[in-house]
């Protein structure tokens, strides 16, 4: 009995990680959308699988909303093809697609009651009246708005309006549900509550969700898989953990969470481990398979996440499987759940370190000489970004599209 259970878990987790063998419900093939000579979406290829909670994440102007609008039928691609459930829908009008949308502003019909709002799509499908009534009340219960049928949309709070917008789209049981930054109008507390709620509803109805957001926490909390987009292209794709722990570009490393990035060159390749010599002469090791190209002499940025670093006072004799750097604590901030340090290396570069407050040895203070160590397996390397400041683009994501 127990053996079998273990086997099942292995199989299913295997599927979730690789997504191989699953049925793609959406296929985007070489899609490009050009607005006034500037590409908003640039040769996009993407497959979304059945029943997935999939997020398009990126700063404003990255093409995520344009992608969603092309799937909804509100924009036509300049080139490329879009398949939905195996059928090409590239140039199909929105009302002929088995896709429904939760709009950023909710876009509820102000002249209709809650019931009529939710029933709108079913009525257009000429469904039987009794069946419409049944489905609408079931759906309103699912989104936790029972006995609200008769109300006007203006009588609802922002959170309730959002639930109506969700119910209005979901009641049609579409092949794909598009959500265009649906939380952007909610306050932080309600937003967090709705994230959990939305995930619950998605699990319950089993419909494929495509969620567009610029909020990385939101995307990581809810998604089975996500893509990080920038300038109309995909910068990273995978489960939130994969994309976070193994960022493949400098943009992903800084947009999705924080990263310490140090510029250097690959100076040696020995088996599965590569040595990167930083401009200061310090050497760090990184898994060879984590290099963007396996080539000696390659210019890279070596990265590590702040929470992967251990901060200590010891003389830091290089342990096998660990990278280490010396530095001096410049700023130490206590945040309750942990300590955040800004550590300056001997050559003047700042590293951010995050240590959990688990009551171990006395926390270093500013001015203390420290040694930073982290496992080689948590070290990654990316191509240095060609131009433009990463921070600037990452913060642009705060502004609505």
């Amino acid at each position: 009995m127990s053996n079998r259970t273990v086997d099942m878990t292995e199989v299913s987790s295997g599927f979730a990680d690789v997504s191989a063998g699953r049925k793609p419900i959406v296929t985007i093939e070489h899609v490009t959308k050009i607005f006034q000579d500037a590409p908003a979406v640039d040769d996009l290829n993407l497959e979304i699988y059945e029943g997935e909670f999939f997020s398009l994440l990126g700063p404003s102007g990255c093409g995520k909303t344009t992608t969603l609008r092309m799937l909804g039928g509100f924009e036509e691609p300049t080139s490329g093809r879009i398949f939905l459930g195996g059928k090409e829908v590239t140039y199909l009008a929105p009302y002929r697609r088995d896709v429904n949308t939760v709009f950023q502003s909710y876009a509820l019909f102000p002249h209709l009651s809650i019931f009529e709002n939710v029933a709108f799509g079913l009525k257009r499908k000429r469904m039987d009246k009794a069946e419409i009534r049944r489905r609408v009340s079931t759906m309103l219960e699912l989104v936790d708005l029972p006995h609200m049928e008769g109300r006007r949309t203006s009588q609802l709070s922002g959170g309730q309006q959002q639930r109506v917008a969700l119910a209005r789209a979901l009641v049609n049981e579409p092949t794909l549900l598009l959500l265009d930054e649906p939380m952007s109008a909610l306050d932080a507390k309600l937003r967090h509550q709705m994230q959990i709620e939305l995930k619950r509803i998605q699990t319950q109805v089993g419909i494929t969700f495509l969620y567009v957001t610029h909020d990385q926490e939101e995307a990581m909390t809810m998604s089975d898989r996500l893509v990080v987009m920038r300038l109309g292209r995909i910068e990273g794709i995978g489960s939130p953990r994969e994309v976070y722990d193994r960022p493949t570009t400098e943009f992903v490393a800084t947009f999705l969470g924080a990263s310490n990035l140090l510029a250097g060159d690959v100076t040696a390749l020995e088996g599965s481990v590569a040595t990167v010599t930083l401009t200061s002469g310090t050497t760090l090791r990184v898994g060879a398979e984590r290099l963007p190209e396996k080539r000696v002499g390659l210019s890279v940025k070596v990265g590590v996440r702040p929470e992967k670093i251990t901060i200590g006072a010891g003389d830091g004799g290089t342990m096998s499987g660990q990278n280490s750097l010396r530095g001096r604590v410049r700023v130490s901030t206590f945040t309750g759940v942990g300590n955040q340090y800004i550590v300056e290396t001997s050559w003047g570069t700042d590293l951010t370190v995050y240590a959990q407050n688990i009551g171990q040895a006395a926390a270093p203070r500013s001015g203390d000489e420290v040694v930073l160590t982290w496992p080689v397996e948590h070290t990654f390397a990316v191509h240095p970004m060609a131009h433009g400041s990463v921070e600037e683009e990452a913060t642009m994501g705060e502004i609505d599209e």
Partner: protein
Amino acid sequence: MDQLVHADHPGGVERTHHRRGSWGKRLAPYLLSLPAVVWLLLLFLVPLAIMLSLSLKTCNPASGTCYMTWSWGELPHQVNLYRTQFITSLEYAAAATIVDLVVSFPIAYWIAFHGGRKKNFFLMMLLVPFFVSFVIRTLVWEFILSNNGFFMTFLRHAHLISANFHVLGTGYAVIAGLSYNYLPFTALPLYVALERIDRRVLEAAYDLYASRREAFQRVIVPLAIPGIFAAFLLTFIPAFGDYVNQQILGGTSSTMIGTVIQNTFLVTGDYAAGSSLSVVLLVISLLGIWLYARVLGSRSIEEYL
């Protein structure tokens, strides 16, 4: 209401400390509204009161003197006397309003949804003819519709109408004139109503399987209804009391109530009868506004004025 009162008096402490400032603050709204109040009092309420009292008096047209006789019977008497003219006015005004709604809806729709960046230019194009005086525009219509005018001549030459067919001097000419002159009063509220429809709501309709026709029927028209009603009132009420179009384009046939009132005042000199007729006209118009307020609420009409 409570909140408004609190906002005016933020707290007792401040009142005692800044007595002078608080006096100024309290008086400011009254002082600022003084010009409007005086205007309304002298040019609206006083004439209205005079008209209402005149309608209950009996006048001697020869001497021009009037005595208060509380003749309430004058109102139904006048309605009976000019029943035909009231009905003609209602018919013409209704016909003109319907023509205006049918003509301006597509114009307003096109400008609102497809005007793009040139919306204001198109609206301007719609309004430019109306910078010309009302009477001159109507006189030009007389010229256009006259039997020897180019329009009728052309139709005769094209054998579309018979030699003795004429429009000028008939009710159709009056309706044409009324429709033309009141078109902006229909087109502008309609445009405002259509323009303010949220495009994302329309997208939501398409997203929920509504075809273009269904989206128009189920979303655009219902959301434009307050504008349609406002357009109706703003066109119908002035057209109902209009006399210029009837006098210039209608000749002696089928008199409208506006002409009757004008004649009673200026030709017969019977101020009491003229005032009675005006009161009836006013009551009918108010009835329309009251109906609008009942159906759509009193707030929405202000938005279109």
